[in-house]
């Protein structure tokens, strides 16, 4: 079984269902629109900020504010790409065609990852430029130290959040169960854990909190995070690898 055949087949699958288009479009639109809006509001708020807040004012990071919501659409994309196979029963047809389950799963994930990366990277650059345009005199330039890394990292962040969701969906199979766990986790629980003093130190090792460090250019004044931008992305990548490994092992072991 040539992997290129399976990759081609998975590309046909992903481009021929409507959910791919609407989840990715939603991720793009929400991330950009919310980023632009918050950038605009931040510009007007800047003069009211305290001295310390002015010091840690991070125009790059502010333009990515829409990602907290936009990532939810990326999660839906990742979940549906994998769990659609199960909810429709297509998995039996697919595995009869490609009995090498590792080839099947990783071809599917490779195609979906590639697509998420292209969309995520484009979104990241567009939201950066539009956001900076809104920030006016407080803007950051792509050439400033760390900015290009942050913008490129924004694309990686969106990609990894989708791939992590694919791994979780491969383990759980049901789209409802996967979304029911991932959505509240990333939208609520992770934020709560990260903002409550007692759990802050655990919260910062969660995939989204660690990963979003890559989009930060200006470090907050009293920041004691023990990892840097790439270290944070590395932590997120480890979560993703773990989810994929779990999904693969279960797929290999389970009856379809």
């Amino acid at each position, binding site marked *: *079984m*040539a992997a290129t*055949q*399976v990759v*081609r*087949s*998975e590309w*046909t*699958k992903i481009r*021929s*269902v*409507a*959910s791919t288009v609407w989840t990715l479009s939603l991720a793009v639109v929400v991330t950009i629109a919310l980023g632009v809006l918050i950038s605009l509001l931040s510009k007007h708020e800047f003069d009211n900020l305290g001295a310390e807040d002015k010091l840690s004012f991070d125009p790059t990071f502010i333009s990515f504010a829409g990602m907290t919501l936009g990532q939810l659409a990326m999660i839906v994309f990742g979940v549906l790409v994998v769990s*659609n*196979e199960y909810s*429709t*029963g*297509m*998995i*039996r*047809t*697919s*595995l*009869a*065609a*490609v*009995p*090498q389950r590792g080839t099947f799963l990783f071809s599917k994930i490779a195609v979906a990852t590639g697509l998420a990366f292209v969309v995520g990277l484009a979104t990241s650059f567009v939201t950066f430029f539009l956001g900076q345009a809104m920030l006016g005199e407080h803007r950051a330039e792509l050439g400033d130290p760390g900015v290009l890394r942050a913008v490129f990292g924004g694309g990686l962040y969106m990609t990894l959040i989708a791939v992590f969701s694919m791994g979780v969906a491969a383990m759980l199979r049901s789209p409802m169960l996967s979304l029911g766990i991932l959505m509240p986790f990333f939208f609520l629980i992770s934020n709560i854990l990260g903002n409550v003093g007692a759990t802050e130190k655990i919260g910062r090792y969660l995939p989204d909190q660690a990963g979003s460090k890559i989009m930060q250019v200006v470090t907050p004044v009293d920041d004691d995070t023990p990892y840097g931008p790439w270290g944070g992305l590395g932590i997120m990548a480890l979560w993703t690898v773990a989810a994929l490994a779990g999904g693969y092992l279960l797929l290999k072991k389970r*009856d*379809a």
Partner: protein
Amino acid sequence: MIELDGLTKRYGEKVAVNNLTFAVRPGIVTGFLGPNGAGKSTTMRMILGLDRPTAGDVRIDGTHYDGLRDPLTYIGALLDAKAVHGGRNAFNHLLCLAQSNGIPRARVDEVLDTVGLTSVARKKAKGFSLGMGQRLGIAGALLGDPRILMFDEPVNGLDPEGIHWIRNLMKSLAAQGRTVFVSSHLMSEMALTADHLVVIGQGRLLADTSMADFIQQNSRSYVRIRTPQRERLLDVLRGAGVVAVETGGGTLEVDGGKPEHIGELAARHQIVLHELSPQQASLEEAFMRLTAESVEYHAHDTAPPGAPVQDWGGDWKREG
């Protein structure tokens, strides 16, 4: 050729498929018959490597399923007509299967034409009727032009025209020298299409025989007689060496008897007959008799043999 060797599947305590050993040969339609829940679908899923056997082995042309390069070109299967993403159109559904097995794109149009779905090729599968879904599944099975075809309950829910089409398709595929393995829970359906029969019940092999042999062995013919002069007739028959069995309701049955012979005997002794009719037990009855002990879900409309007959409210009468 599909070869099963001691194939077994256990789910916890429950044995779904129990030590199945048989082979499915090319050039004929092999019927795979069993009541609902007998383990037919589980067996077929194991053949395709979807479910892992607890014990035993199954090989396709001597190879394990996951060892086949481009498996759709060896064996095409229709397991579940609904195993399709409803949001994908028929053409793309078949195209992604074709691409995964290196089958040329032109073949997709060919099989769509074969099953008569060309006009709805760009329609989403969720709008398909059961019959159209079944045809799409069969198109997928034919895609790789495989030497082996496997269909799980293909006529379920089809209209008479669709049933007729599938029967002819299976026969023509076998006539081309292919191996055709088709499951059903209806003996009557198998009698019309299958050349060979594999019968299972509760996961165990009950019969592996040619259709002709099965019919010969299991189609009991007998003569049914009703008469007001039962004792006299029994004496006369016994005198002529004919064994009659009383079957309740005042009827007698003579296994393998000739009605002419019995009628003439009765006339000679001036015995009145109310009925003298040749009877043939249907294949459906033979199948039910064969699988009677192994049916998983009985409808308990009659008391099982040997169980005490419940007589609610009868006790007080006897005591009083």
